[in-house]
């Protein structure tokens, strides 16, 4: 059996990579991908803990997270398309008129 902490370490690493993706990447689509990665990392942790505690609630939670992720991605991509239509770019840095 694999110790839970291994899963958690992996999940932490994936989460961090996701965070870095948001911080570093400029392509809004990739940013969204990174966010998805973060959520997936959280899911992994949830499932691992569920396994450790033998509590299936953790898995149910993952179900909800996935749904929410899907909804967010849908709205986010729709927004991206909308912006692209005006601005012709998906570079988040280009969308920075509001400031100060």
């Amino acid at each position, binding site marked *: *059996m*694999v*110790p*839970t*902490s291994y*899963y*958690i*370490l*992996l999940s*932490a690493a*994936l*989460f*961090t*990579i996701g*965070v*870095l*993706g948001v*911080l*570093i990447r*400029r*392509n809004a*689509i*990739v940013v*969204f*991908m*990174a966010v*998805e*990665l973060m959520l*997936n990392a959280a899911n*992994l942790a949830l*499932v691992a803990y569920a*396994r*450790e505690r*033998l509590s*299936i609630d953790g*898995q*149910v939670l*993952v*179900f*909800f997270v*996935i749904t*929410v*992720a*899907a*909804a*967010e*991605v*849908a*709205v986010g*991509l*729709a927004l*991206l*398309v*909308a912006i*692209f239509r*005006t601005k012709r*770019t*998906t*570079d988040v*840095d280009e969308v920075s008129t509001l400031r100060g």
Partner: protein
Amino acid sequence: MDLILFLITAAVALIGAIAMLVSRNAVHSALFLLLNFAAIAVLFLLLQSPFLFAIQLTVYAGAIMVLFLFVVMLLGAEQVEDTPDRIAWQRPLAVALGVGLLGVAVLAALRYAPGIPPGGAAAATFGDPAELGRLLFTRYLLPFQVTGIILLIAVVGVVVLNQYGRSKAALKPPPGD
């Protein structure tokens, strides 16, 4: 045996994630992410969650990633990061923060470290989709309903956010735009 499988899968997941991070092409990123998702799905299976394994593959690796790819293709946004980074100073800071974040996460995980998982005490029904379904309709009935609302507004949102009917000419941009 499990450990080896875990290590391999974990490696794949990590590689996929890192590759997604560094790929300059959004399509590549998407594909690497797909790889990562698949690896995670395998891990789910390792953790006795067959239902989530399936969901992960269908919803994430399937639906969501397709959506991503579709949008990338639609917008032709494979390579938007050719221009110089205007806030390049942020990159080292970001990496430093990532290391810090990872550090505290590892610290949290290790300090807790029960070490060995409850050995094989898992009931046969653990992770049974039926069990999951029962929970969804009993204890988690409310969240389940709420997800319905979320999906509904997501649909409405997508419609509202793309009002082709609105003419751009009808609008003057506000001053300062």
